[in-house]
Each structure stands twice: as C-alpha cells, then as structure tokens.
C-alpha cells in the first residue's frame, strides 16, 4: 500500500533530510534509497523531487556539488546536509514524534 500523496508531499522535506543524513547522494540515488529503505513504500514522483531538492538547497538546508560520475556518464549533483539542515531535521523529527504521539493518544482515548 502506498502512502497518501498529500501525506508524502507534506513530509517530503523530512523524508529527504532523513535520507541525506546518512551520506551525500544525487537525485536518482535518493529515490532508490527511499524505495529500498522502505520496501518500496516511498515511491516519489521523480519530477517533483528535483524542485524540492533545489528549494532545500536555496533554504540553506542542503549544499550541492557536481561530481564526476563513477560510471563515466554526465556529472552528478550530490546533495549533503548542512548544519542548518541537521538542526531542521531534528526539529522536524520532534514535530513528527509529537504528532505521532498525539494520534496514538487519540486512538487510546486519552489526550
């Protein structure tokens, strides 16, 4: 079962920052990583990934650098988390956990 598109869209920044925390990656690698780490649950619309990466770069959460491809193709643009990006990731994680706890509380009938 795939996640609701709005849920995915609303949490895209968190997902991207979470993936890039492990290591710098380029666009296609991020897509593959998201799929493999979630058993295909996160299946991005590829075309929407790049504008999101550029936006995060512009916000200073990511830093990007072109590097030669290891397979001889065109250069790849690698994205890595900045310090600001790491802090934002922590904040977003906390928000998500609070939200999750609140949902769990609702399920349990308590607030």
């Amino acid at each position, binding site marked *: 079962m795939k996640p609701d598109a709005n849920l995915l869209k609303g949490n895209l920044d968190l997902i991207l920052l979470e993936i890039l925390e492990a290591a710098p990656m380029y666009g*296609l690698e991020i897509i593959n990583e998201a799929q493999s780490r979630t058993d295909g649950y996160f299946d991005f619309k*590829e075309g929407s990934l*790049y*504008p999101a990466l550029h*936006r995060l770069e*512009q916000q200073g959460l990511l830093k990007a650098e072109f590097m030669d*491809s290891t397979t001889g193709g*065109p*250069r*790849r643009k690698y994205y890595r988390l900045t310090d600001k990006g790491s802090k934002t990731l922590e904040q977003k994680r906390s928000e998500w956990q609070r939200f999750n706890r609140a949902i769990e509380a609702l399920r349990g009938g308590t607030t």
Partner: protein
Amino acid sequence: MNPLERYLEQATKGLWGKKKLEVREEITAHILERAYKHEVSGVAFEIAVSRAIEELGDPKTIRRGMIGVHTMPNVFKISGFLTIAAAGTIAMLSVSSAQVTGTTRVPIVQCQNPATVFFEVPSSSSSKPTQIPCESLVWLEISSLRKTLEPLGVKFEEWVQADMGTYKLMRYRLTFPEGGTATWQQEAGIDDYGSTTNPAIPYLPGFVSVHTLVTALAQVKAPFTMSGWDNPTLRIGQIAFQIGSKETRILGQDWYRIALAAPLYKKLQGITLAPIFLDSPNYVEKSATLAGFPIMYRQYTHQIRTELPNQQIVVVVERTALREISLNNKIQVMPSSTRTFITTVRQDGTIEFPSDAKNIRFVDNLKDMQSSENNGTGAIAVLKFTNQMNLGSETFTAVPSSKFSK
C-alpha cells in the same frame, strides 16, 4: 530535436543562465543513468531513453517547481543599492556624459496578456501563484554600451561562460574606476525554439535589456542615481552616461516603469484583488491584445492641475469598476482592475492621464480605492516618490486630493 533534448527544453523553459545549465545537466544525468539500466536489460538505447523520460514524468512538473524556486527571487532581486533621483530634483551632472545608442524595444514573449503588468507562474512554496513582471522591455546595444563606458574608465569584459551547441551563455563584467563591478549573463544565439527560454527576461543577441542592466549596475557599491525623463542619465559613483539618443529614444515612462515595477507592485498588492493593468505606450490608440486577440476599449483622457513641482514624477493609480472591451466584435465587460500610469508634472502644473472611466473620483489613500468596485465610478490616487529613493523600501506617498483642481 531528439526526445532527450525536447524533454530538457520543456523542463528548463523559464530558467535562466547558469541555473538552467545546471538543471539540464542534473536531469540529463538522471535520464541517462536510468536509460543505461534499461539498456543493460536488453532494451535499445532510444527506447531506454524514452522509458527513462516517461518515468521522470511530465516535464512541466519540473519546470513549474524550478521556476518557483529560481526565477522569482531573481526577478525581484533589485538591490537596495539602487536609488533613483526624480527628474529635475538633482544638480546637473558635473562629469562628462555620453550616450548609448542603438536602443530597440521588443514585446515580451509568453505573456498571456501583454497589457498586464504581471503574469502568474505556479509557486512551489505557496498555493498562490507567483507574479512576474510582464512588460515590453527596452534594449541597449552592448557594443554601444562598451564604446560609451570604456572612455570613461570602465573596464568592459565579455566571455563565453558555456557553449551548449545550440546556444552560448555569455557573461559580461564592468569594472568601475572606483573598484565596483557589475556582472550579468545572457544567452547568445538562437535555441531550437528560435527564442530564449526565460519568460520574464527574453533576450536579443547583441543587446542587453534595461532591466538586466539596472539589476547589474545595482551590484556596484556606489551611489546609483538616475535623472531626466526621456533618455535618462545614469550616474554610478563618478561615472555618468546617458542612455538613449535622439534617433533611438528611451521613453521615461518605459524606463521608470521597469525600474519601479517591483516596489510599486509591493505597494499595490495590498489593495488589488484584480489583475493590475498597465498602459501600453500606444494607449492613445485605445487598442491592445488580450490572450492573443486584438481588442478595442473605451478610454478617456483626464487632466488635473496640481501643486506639485514641474517634472515631478508621479504614478497615477486607477481602480475601475468596469472595463468595457470589444473582443471579436462582441462587447464584454471585464471585472474591476487596477492599473498604473507613470508620468511627470508639466511646466504648467498639470498631469494628464488616461482612464477607462468617464467620471473619476480622487482618493487620498490606496485603501479608499476598494469601494470603487460597487459604485461604478473610477477611483484615482496620485502617488509621488521621494527625490532620492531606495527601491527596496517604501517609496511612494499619496498626494492629497485637496492638492488637485480640474
């Protein structure tokens, strides 16, 4: 054009310069890597590329997202260093001046309604679309600019930043005697569509748009002022030169409209629910185009007497309840609109301006204009800006209507 090139063009249409090249390279790498994987599984390369393109999805998704991230901030990035001196209010220039000739003007491409100041592009960060200035641009011949500036001690450099085959990315740098630099880049040559790909800032080979030049000159960390109406004089530090010439005039209304578009929009956006319309230079013909169709509309000329000084530059803001236009021989009534007209006070103290409304009323502040939607009467506010302005800040003040007389 092969499918990959076509996709890249569609995905990056609207991006500009280095950013466009970077996105092209990034998307190319993505498609080719995907294609190689398909090829390994036994698919012909052409089919593999097509499949990779299909997986990447509609190029418009990338285009819309990228424009929202990259194009808009650049359009409004007119630096705080840019200041303008209203005509007739600064001392005569004491340094030598020179003229840049060879100006031309072309209509902007891709504006759905050329009479509209702004056109809308989707925003990635907001559900509301982003507005980009949309207007006829005035162009200066680069070779003439060079001939003008070099004798004044400005070092002029140009080089090819990137050669993409179908077009080149040119870069220009002006180094002023006091040390400040102004740089800009623009595409040269004709791409496969026969035009540039940036809807906000098109280009003409060999010419630089005044919009681009103003933005570049604003990088120079020196006082940057402008004086005069038609063929205005620019002064950057100790360098002064005039743009336009007797043969190729740069109209003050065009120039000030370009230079003031961003702050004026900021001032107006609080009151405008409808599109902002701007007079085209041929407004006296009372014709325009709307979504590609020629239209005729009624227009009245009004004249008021003011207590403002001669040559004071003013912005006449009009909000009309109805706008009657003839489209395809059918009279249609457009919803209310707000539009601006930039002009100067004449020697006898009068201001003349066009209006859609026969009867107009003057208001003392922009908020009072909103009620004009209900009573069918056009509302007019006259704004003036300070003599020495900073375009990054509030620059317009409303002139009290008590200062007007018919």
